[in-house]
C-alpha cells in the first residue's frame, strides 16, 4: 500500500496535467477586434455595437462549423474631432498598432489605401453574398477606389435644403404650393434665384432678421460642393481619374453667396458661427431657408425641442442654380474599413463582422437611433425603418438622387482650396472672379497634373 501510494500520486498528477492540457487545447481561440469610430456620438453607438452583435452571430456560425472562436470587440469613439481621429488612426497604423476596423469618411479610402493602411474588403468577403448584394449600388461605388471595393457603407445621409413653412406662408405660399415645392425643385422649376427672392421677401417683410433669410451651414463640409454642382460643376473626370475645376460653375457658385450677402439675406460673417447657436436658430424658425443634413432631424426634434417637424419644415434637394446645373444632394456615407494586420485570419474575421453588421436589420438600428438613412432598399421592409416617417421620406426624396464627392488622394486639397476661395468671396475680400483666379492658381500649383481646368 505504502509503496503504491507515490505511483498513484504520480498517476493522479499526470492525469491532472493531461486534463488541463486537454482543456487547454479545447479552449476557445481568442480574437480581439478593435473598432475605432470617428465623428461618433452616443446617438451613433450602433456603429460599434453592431460589430459586437455581429461578433456574437459570427461566433455561433463558426461554432456550427466546428470552430470555437471567442471574438472580443473593443470599441472606441472618444477622439475629439475628425482630425484627431484621422491622426490617431494614421499614427497607430504607422506604428503597427492599427485597430482592426475603422468607421470613417469614404474620402479616406483613397489616401489610406495608397498608404497601405487598409485592405480591400472584397479580398475577404463574397461580394455576391447577402447582405452586400442588397446595398444600394451608388453607395457601394462610393466605397470603392480604382475599381476595387475597399469598404462597406456604414450609413447613408444626405444634405437637404430646408424651408420654414410658417415664413413661406406669410410671404404668400399656399399649403398646396409648399407641398409641391420638393417636386418643383426636382423639376428645376424652383431655382437658387427663387431662394434669394423668397429669402429677401422674408427679410423685407420683417419675418426674419437681416441675414437670416438664407442661413447656410457655418463651416466647411461637403455641403458647399452641392452649390458648385447646382451650377453645373463636376468634380471628377471619370475617364482620366483627374479632378475638375470648372471655372464658370465655380464663379457662379461664389457669386450666389456674394449676392446673398448683398441682398441682406445672409450675413457676411456667417462662416464661423457657433454650431450650437446655429442649430437653435434654425430649429426655432429664426431663419427662413437653410440647408443642413438629414441627421440634423435628430438634433432639431430632440435637443432643440422642435415638435411637429413635418408641420413646420419642408425639405427638398438643393435647387439648381441655372439651366446647366442640376438639383442635387451629396451623401457622404461613413464606411467600415478593414485595416492591414499581420494576421490574415484577423482581417478575414474583421471583414466578416463588417459584412454581418451591414445586414438591413442591424443597420436599421443605427439608422433610426442616429437619424441616418439606410444603406439598402431592403430596409423599407423592416417595420422600424418603414414606420419612421423621416427615414422613409428622406430616403425616397433625397437618397436616390444623391451623389458623393470623389475618392481621390488630392480631393482634400481641392476641397480646402475651394472652401477658402468661397470664404474670401463671401466675406467680401475678393470678387467672385478674383477668388476663382486665386483658386485656379492655387489648385494648379498644388494639384499639378491631377487637375483639369475648364
Amino acid at each position, binding site marked *: 500500500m505504502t509503496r503504491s501510494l507515490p505511483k498513484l500520486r504520480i498517476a493522479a498528477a499526470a492525469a491532472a496535467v493531461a486534463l488541463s492540457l486537454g482543456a487547454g487545447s479545447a479552449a476557445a481561440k481568442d480574437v480581439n477586434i478593435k473598432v475605432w469610430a470617428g465623428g461618433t456620438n452616443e446617438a451613433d453607438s450602433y456603429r460599434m455595437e453592431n460589430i459586437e452583435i455581429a461578433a456574437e452571430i459570427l461566433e455561433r456560425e463558426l461554432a456550427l462549423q466546428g470552430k470555437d472562436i471567442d471574438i472580443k470587440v473593443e470599441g472606441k469613439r472618444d477622439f475629439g474631432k475628425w482630425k484627431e481621429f484621422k491622426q490617431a488612426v494614421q499614427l497607430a497604423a504607422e506604428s503597427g498598432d492599427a485597430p482592426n476596423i475603422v468607421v470613417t469618411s469614404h474620402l479616406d479610402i483613397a489616401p489610406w489605401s495608397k498608404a*497601405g493602411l487598409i485592405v480591400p474588403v472584397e479580398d475577404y468577403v463574397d461580394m455576391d453574398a447577402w447582405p452586400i448584394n442588397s446595398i444600394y449600388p451608388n453607395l457601394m461605388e462610393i466605397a470603392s477606389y480604382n475599381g476595387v471595393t475597399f469598404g462597406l457603407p456604414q450609413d447613408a445621409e444626405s444634405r437637404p435644403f430646408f424651408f420654414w413653412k410658417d415664413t413661406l406662408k406669410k410671404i404668400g405660399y399656399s399649403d398646396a404650393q409648399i407641398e409641391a415645392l420638393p417636386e418643383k425643385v426636382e423639376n428645376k422649376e424652383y431655382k437658387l434665384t427663387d431662394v434669394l427672392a423668397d429669402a429677401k421677401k422674408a427679410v423685407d417683410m420683417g419675418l426674419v432678421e437681416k441675414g437670416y433669410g438664407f442661413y447656410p451651414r457655418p463651416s466647411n463640409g461637403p455641403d458647399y460642393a452641392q452649390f458648385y454642382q447646382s451650377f453645373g460643376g463636376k468634380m471628377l473626370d471619370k475617364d482620366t481619374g483627374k479632378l475638375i475645376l470648372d471655372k464658370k460653375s465655380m464663379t457662379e457658385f461664389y457669386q450666389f453667396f456674394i449676392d446673398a450677402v448683398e441682398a441682406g439675406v445672409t450675413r457676411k460673417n456667417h462662416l464661423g458661427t457657433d454650431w450650437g447657436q446655429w442649430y437653435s436658430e434654425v430649429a426655432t424658425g429664426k431663419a427662413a431657408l437653410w440647408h443642413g443634413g438629414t441627421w440634423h432631424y435628430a438634433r432639431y426634434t430632440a435637443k432643440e425641442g422642435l415638435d411637429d417637424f413635418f408641420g413646420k419644415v419642408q425639405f427638398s434637394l438643393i435647387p439648381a442654380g441655372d439651366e446647366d446645373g442640376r438639383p442635387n444632394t451629396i451623401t457622404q456615407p461613413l464606411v467600415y474599413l478593414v485595416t492591414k494586420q499581420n494576421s490574415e485570419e484577423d482581417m478575414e474575421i474583421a471583414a466578416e463582422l463588417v459584412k454581418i453588421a451591414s445586414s438591413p436589420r442591424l443597420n436599421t438600428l443605427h439608422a433610426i437611433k442616429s437619424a441616418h438613412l439606410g444603406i439598402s432598399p431592403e430596409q423599407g421592409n423592416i417595420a422600424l425603418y418603414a414606420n419612421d416617417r423621416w427615414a422613409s421620406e428622406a430616403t425616397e426624396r433625397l437618397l436616390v438622387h444623391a451623389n458623393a464627392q470623389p475618392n481621390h488622394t488630392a480631393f482634400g486639397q481641392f476641397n480646402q482650396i475651394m472652401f477658402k476661395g468661397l470664404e474670401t468671396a*463671401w466675406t467680401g475680400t*475678393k470678387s467672385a472672379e478674383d477668388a476663382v483666379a*486665386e483658386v485656379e492658381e492655387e489648385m494648379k500649383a498644388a494639384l499639378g497634373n491631377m487637375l483639369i481646368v475648364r
Partner: protein
Amino acid sequence: MKKPSHLLGLGFMLPALIVVVLFFLLPVFMTAGIAFTNMSTDTGITGGAYELTPNTIHNLRTQGVDNNLLAQLETDVYRIDEPGLAALATDMGDKLAKELGDTHGGVTFQSRRELERAIKKLKNKPRSTRKLKKAAAFFKRSILNQRFETESEFVSATRNLGLDLAPEHQEVLSKASYTGWTWTTENFSLMTKLPSTLRIAGNTVIYVFFTLTFNVSFGLFLAITTFYLPGKAAATFRTIWFLPRILPPVIYVLMWKWLTWDTGFISTFFGQFGVPAKNWMLDTNFHAWVVIILINGFVGASMGMILFSSAIRAIPAPMLYASEVDGATRWQQVRYIILPQLRWPILFITSYQTLSLLTSFEYIFLATDGGPGKATEVWALSAFHQALANYGGNLQYGYGAALALVLVIIGIIASVGYLRVFNFKELVARPRIEQ
C-alpha cells in the same frame, strides 16, 4: 585630479543637454529632413510598396509610354490556363481543377467577381470564402491593383506577364507605381508658386509687428502704473492682468468668443442702444485682426509687466527721491529715469516675443482659425493646417515641414541678429569691478 570636477559639471548639464537634444535639435533635424520629401498621408511615413493602379496608368500615358503596353496593363484579367489549373490542382485537389478546366478551360474573365461567380456554380466548388478567393487568385494574369512590398517582386510579377517591356519602360513603370515618399525639393518651388504664400507671410508680419507693439507698450504701461500704486493694490492689479497668461488657452479664447459673438456681451450691450447685433470677432478682416492682437497682446503683456516691474524696482530709490526733490513730474521720472534703465529688459522682451510670436498660432487657431477667408492665417498656422489638420484628411507632412523649416531659419537668423544688435557680449561681460 581635474577630471572628476569636469564630470561633475557635465553631470549638472546633462539633463539640460538631453532636453535640448530631444525637444529642440531632434525636431529641427526631423523637420529639415521631412521638408525635403513629398511625405503625406497617402505616401505613408514608414515606407511604400509598388502598386499599379488605373490612375498610375493615366499618368504614364502623358509620359510617352507605349499605349498598347498600357492598354495591356490596364485590364484586370483572369485566364483559365494550364499553369493556373495545375497550381489549383496541387492546392485544392484535382476534382475542382478538372471541373474548372472542363467547363471554362481557355476562358478569360474580365474581373475576379466574374470568375468567382463561375467557380461558385461548379459542383466541386470551394466551401469557404477564403478558399474561393484563393482559387480565383491562381488565374490572375494582370498586376493591376496588386500590392508588392518590394521592387524586385513587382519587377518579376511584371516580367511574368510576358509583356515586351524595355528596361527603361520597366524603370518608369516601377517609379510611377511606387506608393511611398521620395526626396524632393518641390515643396520649396511650390511655396514660391502659391499665391497664398505671400499672403501668409504678410499676415505674419502684421501679426508679429502689432502684437509685439501692443505687448511691449501695454506691459510697460502696466509696470509703470502699478509701480506708483500702493503695494497691495499694485499686487492685486498685477494678478488680474496676469490672468490671461495662466488661464488655459481654450477657456481664455472661449471667453473672448462670448464677448464678441452675435449673441455675446458686446452685441447684447450695444443692442440696448439699437445697434444691430454682429459678430465683433469675424465681421471684417479688421475686426478679426483687432481681436487677434488683443487676445495675444494681453497674454504677452503680462509677461512684460512682471519683467519690467522687477526691473523698475531694481532702480535705486534715492534716484527717484532726488528727482522729486528737484521737482520732477511723474512723466519726467518715467522719461528720464525709468525708461533709460529699462533698455535691456525692453530689448529682451522684444526679441523674445518676436521669436515666440513667429511660431505661435494656438490663440489664432482657437479664435478665428485663420478666418475670415485667409485674413488671419499666419505662417505657423498654415504649416499646422497643411501638416496636421487638413479637412480632407490627406495630411501634407512634407509641405508642412517645409513651411516650418522656413520659420526655423528665420528664427535662427533673427536670434543671431538680436544678439549682435544688443551686443550680447557686453551684456554678459564680467563686471569691471571684479577685474
